[in-house]
């Protein structure tokens, strides 16, 4: 095996795993209550909310929640349930914007961006209404490296920093705040369990096969003919796989022009990639944990539902939101430094296009997997050694669902 495993990674065995967690109602209820109801979930980026009054509204279907994330007039980012204190109407219906007040369309109760109840039409007709205790219901909200997280526990058992643990220490200096331009791909609702889809983004075994027309020869080379990851490392329930690129892959004409102006995770060379890497190396920036010369990117899972493709000058976030046991909402954000020139913007278009076409190849495949699992032909699934990331994911989900991780 080409892949090396960090010495402190626990031995998770090699046995087949049960398929029931993909199809079982009880297991999904356990995920809803003991996992998505208890841990920190990445909901936004600080760069989406640069100014006081900026807000986004995001659904978290597995918790039946609509969440307002807003930067208050005091500059602090907060999260609230998007629910009016009067009769539980949905207060803010826009997906994003800038406002001084959130005004409920039902009876025009209004709240400021810090969640305080400000206006109640016909207030004198309410007997004993205490405006001070009837603001928007807050949701615990903390930020790490410009990533905004929420936690649905009223009093979370861990701070965000404690939850991220060694992952935060490892990647504290990754310059995510510099990557404040983005492309967003909205795939919407998929007919698959959230884990089937997430599993596809955290192993690289399938890249040479399912993606043979998009990532041909990109991540394999003479010493690594099967295109294995170079390194696997865990950080509590979080994890990273590190990938190298094929140093001798010949660039096609347009690809070569593009790679001169900007690199991306699918770049396999070019001066832009080398320059971007040199700006990050040696600063404890959460990249290239094995220190390989032909480092391409790391696939870092922020448990439970975000896969972060950590590049030298791009950061891509797959965000995978369970709806019910067989429906999932999927979107991704590719974050870059804001292009300074048309040529740099052109280069992004090329590499983004290749990335987009690659990820949509996973849609129909994973939907078929879900359908097949429901057919009941199989009761378990097999994982090879480099799919250890999937095994690690399922291990930690089981620890939450069983309550062991919460004890």
């Amino acid at each position, binding site marked *: 095996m080409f892949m090396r495993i960090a010495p402190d990674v626990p031995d998770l065995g090699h046995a087949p795993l049960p398929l029931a967690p993909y199809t079982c109602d009880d297991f999904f209820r356990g995920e809803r209550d003991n996992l998505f109801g208890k841990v920190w979930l990445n909901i936004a980026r600080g760069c989406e909310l640069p100014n006081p009054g900026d807000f986004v509204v995001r659904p978290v279907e597995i918790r039946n929640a609509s969440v307002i994330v807003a930067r208050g007039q005091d500059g602090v980012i907060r999260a609230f349930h998007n629910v009016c204190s009067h009769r539980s109407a949905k207060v803010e219906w826009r997906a994003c914007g800038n406002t001084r007040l959130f005004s409920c369309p039902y009876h025009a109760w209004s709240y400021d961006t810090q969640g305080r109840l400000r206006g109640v039409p016909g207030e004198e007709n309410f007997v004993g209404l205490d405006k001070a205790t009837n603001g928007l219901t807050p949701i615990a909200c903390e930020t790490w490296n410009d990533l905004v997280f929420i936690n649905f526990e009223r009093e979370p058992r861990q701070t965000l920093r404690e939850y991220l643990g060694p992952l935060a220490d490892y990647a504290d200096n990754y310059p995510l705040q510099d990557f404040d331009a983005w492309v967003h791909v909205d795939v919407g609702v998929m007919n698959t369990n959230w884990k089937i889809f997430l599993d596809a983004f955290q192993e690289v075994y399938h890249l040479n096969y399912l993606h043979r027309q998009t990532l041909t020869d990109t991540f394999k080379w003479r010493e690594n003919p099967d295109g294995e990851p170079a390194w696997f490392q865990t950080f509590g329930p979080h994890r990273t796989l590190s990938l190298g690129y094929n140093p001798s892959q010949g660039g096609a004409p347009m690809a070569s022009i593009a790679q001169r102006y900007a690199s991306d995770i699918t770049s396999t060379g070019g001066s832009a990639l080398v320059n971007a890497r040199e700006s990050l190396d040696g600063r404890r920036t959460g990249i290239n944990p094995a220190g390989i010369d032909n480092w391409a990117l790391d696939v870092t899972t922020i448990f439970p539902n975000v896969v972060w493709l950590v590049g030298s000058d791009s950061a891509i976030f797959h965000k995978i939101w369970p709806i019910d046991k067989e429906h999932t909402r999927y979107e991704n954000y590719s974050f870059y430094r804001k292009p300074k020139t048309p040529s740099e*913007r052109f280069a992004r278009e090329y590499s983004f296009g290749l990335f987009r076409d690659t990820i949509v190849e996973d849609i129909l495949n994973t939907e078929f997997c879900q359908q097949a699992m429901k057919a009941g032909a199989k009761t378990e699934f097999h994982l090879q050694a480099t799919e250890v990331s999937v095994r690690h994911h399922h291990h930690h989900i089981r620890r939450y669902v069983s309550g062991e991780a919460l004890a």
Partner: protein
Amino acid sequence: MSAVVTLPPAFAVLEPFAADWALPTSDERLHKRMNASLEDIQAFYDAVLPLTEQALAHLDRHPLDALPPAETRLFQLLLAAAEAALAIEVYHAPRLPLAPSNSRFRVTHTHMGGA
């Protein structure tokens, strides 16, 4: 009366392609590529490739967020050429066999500047 926008004079040879390919959004350019024949994509690619570096150099004389109308048309044409290049150089097909219909996903480019 608004003037018809054409490409900058140095790139007039690409004008026959501009009406079809100089499209303002990423989704529109992708849909154009996915629904074109490989022969049409090849013809577009072959026409643009030799002028790409010259065109980028021309565009780089302008700020990304303040391209004049003719340059905007050229820029959109180059972004479409990036799509065409994927079909010609990488996939050897207008669309990938495993790719779902382009109605299954939507791209927003609003935070990247330019087109």
